[in-house]
């Protein structure tokens, strides 16, 4: 009478127990994991253009301006201040991030006496052209990031910096 079953009673019970147990454990763990990984699944905040400076103040020499905005930290709103290098290239506004593309130090315009017409990073002597292009032979491997910008009623509004490659 007893057939040769492919799945023995013991195996069946093991599977059934593991299955139900696994289902229950997943039901408990899933909400917690989803809760924990929420930051990477939140929709990116849409880009707000921030009023930084009047076009009249700009020249063809890069100048540092402060960009102030509010950053949403979940339960806290933080006032953030960033420095941006802005200049006029003909009629075109160019806004460059001061964050060195080597390891993230802050670059300055013309502080290297040997290269007054360049951005200079004091950390490992990285240098960049006026348009942000990295100078070959110095540590940085890509140009300074450039801010999205908009000119409205004679004011310069900036968005987010993005790589200019």
């Amino acid at each position: 009478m007893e057939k040769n079953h492919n799945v023995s009673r013991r195996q069946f019970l093991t599977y059934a127990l593991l299955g139900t147990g696994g289902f229950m454990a997943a039901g408990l763990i899933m909400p917690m994991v989803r809760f924990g990984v929420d930051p990477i699944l939140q929709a990116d905040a849409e880009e707000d253009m921030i009023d930084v400076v009047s076009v009249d103040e700009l020249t063809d020499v890069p100048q540092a301006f402060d960009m102030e905005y509010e950053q949403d930290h979940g339960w806290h709103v933080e006032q953030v201040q960033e420095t941006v290098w802005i200049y006029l290239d003909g009629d075109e506004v160019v806004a460059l991030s001061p964050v060195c593309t080597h390891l993230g130090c802050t670059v300055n315009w013309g502080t290297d006496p040997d290269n007054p017409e360049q951005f200079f990073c004091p950390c490992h002597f990285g240098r960049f052209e006026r348009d942000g292009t990295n100078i070959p032979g110095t540590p940085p491997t890509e140009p300074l990031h450039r801010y999205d910008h908009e000119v409205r009623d004679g004011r310069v509004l900036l968005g987010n910096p993005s790589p200019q490659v």
Partner: protein
Amino acid sequence: MLQRIYDWIDDRIDVTPLWRDVADHEVPEHVNPGYHFSAFVYCFGGLTFFTVVIQILSGMFLTMYYVPDIVNAHASVEYLQTDVAFGMIVRGMHHWGASVVIVMVFLHTLRVFFTGSYKKPREINWVVGVLLFFIILGLGFTGYLLPWDMKAYFATQVGLEIAESVPVVGDMISNLLAGGEFIGAQTLTRFFAIHVFFLPGALLGLIAIHFIMIRRQGISGPL
């Protein structure tokens, strides 16, 4: 595949006896609800442990968002509950689970009492159990303050008044608990530290002792 990975490890460090020792132990007929339904009363200890595990897990996740600071505590709880996915569920688990643990541990204590399981040779385990009971009450008391809302504040005020009513050293106990004369920033950080580090540490240690003793002494006989 899994079997081969297991064999590879087992070959080298011989893990089988370890988990065999944990997994294989006799569960006598009188505690198996499959034989006598009334034996479900023997499940309360296991259920307590199960809810404690849920409390630890959900608590670990809650601390990803919670800050024990009087300015931000309430706002962070509100944020994690309303703006983070499944926040309501995870906080709900911890909130309701806290009550469930206390109910379960109480029922477990009653079962041990009425089946006389605390008698020789299990007296030490009874004492450890009572300590665990107090630790769980302590976790409930300290956790209650953390959302930093009105209910939390006034419940803690009452709790501290109760501590103050202890003769002679009452004031000292209350100040030690609150980290000062009043409930404030220092109380919140203190309660947080006690709630997430001190008491859980003690809880895990005593639970280990509790379980090892059960395995050494076996399950108490039928009534």
